[in-house]
């Protein structure tokens, strides 16, 4: 828990400055990054799958983005990009690439390797889709009512 809070803080602050985010947007970005990291790790600990927990975390980011974007007059993208880096499935992508390299260089007869690498690459694309759709959905459906809600 403390580890995920710390790493969410460091990752979102680091990438916010990497993308040159404005100074007044830094605090909201850190808040979103910490919330996303905690939601994802806690849901994974309770036994949900990687895709579902990533989708829930990015949905939280999308909701918070709407609030802060209406309040500070900064486009949603600025918050969404820097804080959703926390959710990128790097290990899966790495394993997929390693599998592809192994298939292409030698070990052509191993079917297990091919299926494993296909599994990891499919999982990577699904998680990427979950991140993007989770961020975009709140702006489409709840955006109409935001002045009533907030």
């Amino acid at each position, binding site marked *: 828990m403390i580890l995920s809070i710390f790493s969410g803080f*460091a990752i979102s602050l680091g990438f916010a*400055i990497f993308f*040159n985010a*404005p100074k007044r947007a830094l605090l909201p970005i850190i808040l979103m990054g910490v919330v996303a990291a905690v939601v994802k790790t806690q849901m994974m600990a309770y036994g949900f799958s990687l895709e579902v927990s990533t989708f829930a975390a990015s949905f939280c980011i999308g909701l918070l983005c709407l609030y802060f974007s209406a309040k500070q007059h900064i486009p949603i*993208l600025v918050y969404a990009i820097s804080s959703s880096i926390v959710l990128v499935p790097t290990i899966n992508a790495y394993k997929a690439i390693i599998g592809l390299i192994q298939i292409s260089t030698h070990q052509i007869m191993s079917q297990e390797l091919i299926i494993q690498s296909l599994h990891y690459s499919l999982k990577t694309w699904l998680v990427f889709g979950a991140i993007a759709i989770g961020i975009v959905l709140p702006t489409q459906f709840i955006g109409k009512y935001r002045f009533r809600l907030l």
Partner: protein
Amino acid sequence: MNKEKCIIDLLAEIGKLLLQHGAETDVVEKGIQNAARNAGYTNIETLILPNTILISLSSDGELFQTRLQRAERQGVNFQVLDRVEAIIRTIDETTDLDQLRLKLQDENQLAAGYPNYLRNIMAATGCAAFSLLFGGDPYIFMATFIASFSGFYVNSFLLKHYFNPFVVIVAVSFVTTMISGLMTIENDFSHIAIASSILFLVPSVAFINSVNDLIKRHYTNGLIRGMRGIIVSFAIAIGMSIALNILGVENFL
């Protein structure tokens, strides 16, 4: 006539700045339309492609002014988006449009962000903290930090000399994988170090913009941005696979 030329030049400049620094199509379109409405012109049509803007402005319903503007470079700088949006909100019918356009063309003042060494350190810290999230120990943390620090340095050095961005990505992912692989070659967690030190190259802006555009019915732009993201991912994979083949794939499973 003269005033219309001024306003259409200003609108093209605004659109180019927004498009060059990573805004999605909807933001660019709304920005141009808001600026035109604030200056007192309601009859405006825009066509936005990933690197071109076409603006057509009609006055009295008869005279049409059309302008085509290209946006050459593509980078991500969110402070420019913030400043341009703030400028759009200040426009009204009495604003001196020529002076405003000169202010927008002054790129050094507009695109001033954080100093480069701070961006370098913070990007490396972000990548290193990512390795903690996947269960790395302090040694992995330091190795990731050093690898992504030097990778980012090479990245900004090559981009300053205007190489092709995809060639730059292949070179940077090669350098980063070599450094992190050499530092953790005997370690059990070497895959965590390699996977998280490459993270600052991931095309997250392209992917999220692509889904955004597709959902908001800008199909062409969404497809092209998604394709760009896929090409960048393959460029990263090419650099990584060259480095891993040199170091030996069996050490990094």
